[in-house]
């Protein structure tokens, strides 16, 4: 031990140690400085493109001439654009601005994107082996409404990579509205909840012209459960009364989430038989879905369901009792009175249920 210590503090070894340490420090400092230098160079380069872009791109965007677009792009900008980073930056900026504008300005941005040869870059990305580059290419092409690339985008709607598929699905809907939903015919991968929200959001600006009613029955019997759930959401959102019976058939699906969505959809497209169908289906359901049936009945129950609901007041679950009581109070003229009567019983939570529902109704 002592021998090893003496060897370490030997001036020769100490000197070697110091040399190794200082070389290490020197290398670290060089790495830090070169990284900072690169970042700074990149930052200034971006600023240079930004200032170039701001001046004449803005002029181009505001161009309202009737004689087609003549952007007079300076040769210096084409030189800058030779660098891939400049191309990427320009595409990103144009897309960000395009998202915020409509009318002539938006059309000018698209024309400028094509004029600068940026479309080629986006199309090239579709062949890239990296999934995130492919997803970005799709995003760029649909943001710039490049309709001729639609078949290639459509081809990616069932891609194995989630983000590629998501962008492609959003893309086809963004470009063709409800027509784009035909990818639901063949998509085998799940459509996530978030993706469904995004698709519905995209459809908000599209016009529904009766195509849904034709396609929904097919999607409602899809082998992909998430397609069925999404189709159910579409049926509810666009109140597709014609698919009522196809939605009822979803009660035979083995997936609880599908049945849950079917219950929610039926409320939105209810007819005179819906409440009865729901009550008949109730005993076959799992607890969470039974609660959903009772929530649905608040809006559509008729006198025919009165005995069914009164029966549920004796259910062993207090939540079921409460929800059944709520339907009774909301759906029948003397429902609240009936609950009050029940509240007088010396057993069970009926008094609390009555008071709770009464306060909910503001009485």
């Amino acid at each position, binding site marked *: 031990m002592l021998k090893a210590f003496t060897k370490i503090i030997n001036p020769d070894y100490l000197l070697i140690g110091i040399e190794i340490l200082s070389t290490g420090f020197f290398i670290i400092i060089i790495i830090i400085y070169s990284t900072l230098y690169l970042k700074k160079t990149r930052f200034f380069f971006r600023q240079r493109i930004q200032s170039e872009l701001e001046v004449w791109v*803005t*002029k181009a965007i*505001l161009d309202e001439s009737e004689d087609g677009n003549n952007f007079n792009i300076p040769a210096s900008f084409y030189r800058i654009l030779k660098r891939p980073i400049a191309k990427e930056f320009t595409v990103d*900026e*144009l897309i*960000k*601005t395009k998202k915020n504008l409509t*009318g002539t*300005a938006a059309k000018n941005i698209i024309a400028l994107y094509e004029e600068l040869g940026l479309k080629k870059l986006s199309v090239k990305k579709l062949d890239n082996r990296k999934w995130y580059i492919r997803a970005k290419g799709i995003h760029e092409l649909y943001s710039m409404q490049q309709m001729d690339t639609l078949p290639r985008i459509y081809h990616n709607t069932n891609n194995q990579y989630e983000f590629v598929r998501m962008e492609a699905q959003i893309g086809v809907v963004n470009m063709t509205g409800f027509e784009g939903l035909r990818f639901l015919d063949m998509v085998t991968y799940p459509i996530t909840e978030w993706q469904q929200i995004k698709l519905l959001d995209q459809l908000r600006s599209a016009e529904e012209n009766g195509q849904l009613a034709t396609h929904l029955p097919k999607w409602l019997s899809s082998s992909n459960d998430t397609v069925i759930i999404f189709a159910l959401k579409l049926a509810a959102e666009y109140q597709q009364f014609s698919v009522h019976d196809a939605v009822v058939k979803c009660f035979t699906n083995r997936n609880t989430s599908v049945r849950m969505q079917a219950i929610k959809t039926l409320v939105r497209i209810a007819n005179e038989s819906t409440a009865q169908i729901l009550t008949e289906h109730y005993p076959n359901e799992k607890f969470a879905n039974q609660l959903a049936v009772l929530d649905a009945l608040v809006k559509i129950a008729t006198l025919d369901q009165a005995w069914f609901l009164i029966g549920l007041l004796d259910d062993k679950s207090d939540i079921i009792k409460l929800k059944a009581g709520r339907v009774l109070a909301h759906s029948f003229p003397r429902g609240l009175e009936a609950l009050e009567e029940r509240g007088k019983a010396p057993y069970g939570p009926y008094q609390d249920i009555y008071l709770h529902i009464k306060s909910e109704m503001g009485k």
Partner: protein
Amino acid sequence: MTILIAEDEPLMRKTISMKLEKEGYTVIDCVDGKEALQKLEEELPDLVITDIMLPYASGLEILRFVKSKSSSAAVIVLSALGQEKTVEDAFELGADDYITKPFNLNELAVRVKRLLKKNQ
């Protein structure tokens, strides 16, 4: 007539400001909420166009500041789709108008003109 624009997207800010300059207004550009509040402290313009989502200080803070200084300065709020609740809040704070992105630049120019005429 002076218009202050608070918008954090550079190209968007420049586009709006050039459009309004073309219409004959004097435009003050601000890249974020902080800069907008500083400039408003120095001089109150005839109209303020502000995005709701801004770094450092939100469009609602700018609106609140303008309305606490002068009730005559008009404010147009730029909102995105799905920000209905924030737009409601903006109206409660005294916003004069709002425009949802994506929007038409000509429509914005018409609204600006109408508001400035009304406030004259």
